[in-house]
């Protein structure tokens, strides 16, 4: 759409002043958010950003490299358990622990990438699915990981308590800012990865792995690298999740979570960073917030409750949430197969030539 005159224009982080402006506005809103929003929204937004990190990472694998993973809840779990275990048993500071845990997740990603060299489509899906389930059960059966009872995260100390310099994040606001910084950094990393040699190799593999090999791309290296990178993102997300929630048990990281990660990037738009961000935000909102309070809204609430009493199960209002989430997903897939990002491109095109 935009005319490019040089290669470096194409890989610029911000392609125009408008983008710079809106990015700054968006960041300003995020930074000032705690000033005018309640604690609940801080939690919800922290959770959204954690999922943004995971889905941006997953999109590198699925959207850009054309592989599939139904095992990302496993990497997410490794990140969460790894960070907490490294902090409590090995006494590492938070930043070291979370990065080490993400590298452990990346290592498992690399290992899971090996079968991906020979498997494709549904077969790869099953292999990754098995991995996700296995991780959940291995953790559930290991006493040092707290077994099925789960783990309570320790105090969120981002300093180096070993050297007597301790800085504990107690409030939701401080956790929110930390997660925000992590999210910005991880999203920038993701955007930049796609502009490097590796990123172009990923896209080439997605479009045709045979053609990619012919032009000299090392399939073994780049396919496993895609898995490892993606797992690294999930690991970072998991480490943050552990502290945002403060408690987790193995069942938190079940198959449904892996599926939801996939849903986020498909709804958002495969192969686009902005797509995965918007997908993660939309799906988290739908799952956690939509309709939660509508039963208490004066007229609408009473109407919906009456409708549900008449035609649905005794559960009442909560039925609607499920239906709405499903309808939104179907709607997006039906009318905008490229996801939210596809819709955005269409809107942009339309306004560019408006009113013609």
């Amino acid at each position: 759409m935009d005319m490019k005159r040089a290669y470096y224009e194409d890989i610029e982080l911000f392609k125009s002043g408008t983008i710079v402006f809106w990015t700054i506005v968006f960041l300003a809103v995020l930074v000032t958010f705690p000033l005018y929003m309640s604690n609940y929204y801080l939690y919800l937004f922290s959770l959204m950003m954690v999922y943004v990190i995971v889905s941006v990472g997953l999109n590198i694998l699925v959207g850009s490299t054309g592989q599939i993973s139904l095992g990302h809840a496993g990497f997410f779990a490794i990140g969460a358990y790894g960070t907490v275990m490294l902090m409590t048993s090995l006494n590492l500071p938070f930043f070291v622990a979370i990065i080490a845990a993400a590298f452990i997740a990346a290592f498992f990603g690399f290992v899971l990438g090996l079968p991906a060299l020979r498997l494709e489509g549904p077969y790869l899906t099953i292999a990754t699915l098995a991995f996700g389930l296995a991780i959940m059960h291995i953790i559930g059966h290991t006493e040092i990981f707290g077994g099925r009872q789960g783990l309570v995260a320790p105090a969120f100390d981002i300093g180096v308590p070993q050297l007597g310099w301790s800085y504990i994040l107690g409030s939701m606001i401080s956790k929110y800012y930390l997660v925000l910084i992590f999210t910005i950094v991880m999203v920038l990393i993701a955007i930049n990865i796609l502009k490097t040699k590796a990123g172009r190799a990923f896209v080439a593999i997605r479009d045709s792995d045979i053609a990619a090999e012919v032009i000299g791309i090392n399939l073994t290296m780049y396919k496993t690298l895609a898995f490892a990178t993606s797992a690294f993102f999930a690991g970072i997300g998991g480490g943050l999740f552990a502290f945002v929630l403060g408690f987790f048990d193995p069942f938190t990281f079940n198959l449904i979570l892996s599926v939801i990660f996939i849903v986020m990037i498909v709804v958002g738009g495969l192969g686009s960073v902005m797509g995965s961000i918007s997908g993660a935000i939309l799906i988290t909102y739908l799952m956690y917030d939509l309709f939660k309070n509508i039963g208490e809204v004066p007229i609408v609430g009473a109407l919906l409750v009456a409708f549900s009493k008449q035609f649905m199960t005794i559960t009442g209002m909560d039925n609607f949430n499920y239906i709405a989430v499903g309808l939104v997903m179907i709607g997006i897939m039906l009318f905008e197969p490229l996801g939210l990002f596809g819709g955005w491109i269409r809107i942009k095109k339309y306004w560019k030539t408006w009113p013609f």
Partner: protein
Amino acid sequence: MRISKNILVTMIVLLLAVFLVASEGLAQKIGFDDKEIRIGSWSPQTGPAAPWGATSRGVKLLFDIINEEGGIHGRQLRLFIRDDQYNPSQTMAAVRDLVDRQGVLAFVGGVGTAPALAVKQYLAQNKIPLVSVMTGAENIHVPHNPWLWGTWPLYDDDASVMAKFVVQKLKAKKIGMLYQNDDYGLDPLAAVQRRLKTYNMELAIAVPVEPIERDLSSQISRLKAAGCDVVIGYVAPTQAAIALRSAVSVDFRPQWIHSYNLTDFVLMNKITDGLWAKEGVMTSAFTDDIFDYSLPNMKKYADTAKRLAPDERWGIFYAAGIVAAEPLVHALKQAGRDLSTEALVRELNKMDNFKGIGPRVSWSAKNHLPPKEFSVWKCGPKGEVIVVQGWTVNDMPKKR
């Protein structure tokens, strides 16, 4: 990178508008006013664990009854039920939402160990009482949490009473145990072993089951080979049904006695095609017999349920919601018109042998542990409840 002034001004105005519209009160809202007392509850209303959600709706029934009778000191009780699908991160969202946006005085009857563990610290920080969390796991209550009161009995107390009953009343010679291989089964296993030691007895065999296992024939043949005449069960309802079917199919007919989570005989008979009644399975129980209308209040509860919630099944988990809410309602009544969180806490801590349709509840400032009292039921030939042992207190509780 040039941006025209007009656009810039428009954008800033827009942004300010967003700020103004979005601004919301930051201070925590108080959970009551002159007209109503707001109480929260979470449970899985949808998803695989949805049957447990009946407890929150049971709480609603009791609140509706109280409201029809004029409320508590002129205030109506208002219950907010939030669906968390048994997912701790959803529980956290629901609890924060209720505390921040609605303002609740207390939570009652939150379902599940993991969801409760996730939110208990947050509730304590915000000084919001959580009354009757629905789980028998010990680590919710130990160490003592001043903002959390237990009504759902601990599994090891349950098992201890059960083992005593098995030895003294059933005169069992060889006792087997079928237990779920996690805290739900392991705590009771230890309690049974402790109790049997006092009689110089040992378990003939203890067979673990994984929560996801669906073929229990090998476990049953091991129990049969050990020649058990009584089998104590600490498994999920589905697995108890499968175990019973496989046992009958190999003509292994011990006296089964299960944990208090399996007291819903109507349900159990349904999923075992009536075998539950035919074999006369026993369970321990933490409520009064909900079909015994001679008990105080029971008929009122059952009749109101039929009138206000005609689609709801009058079952144990629905009634468990009432058991969970009764102590809270009692404390609110005691606290008087001059309500505050402190008054509520004071009255909860003064709870002394309070009896509703569950076990007797006693709490103090230093002790919020759930009751240690159980009865034992047997499923009669028509699926009815036969109380084979009335309320019995565990005389050998674990030191905590």
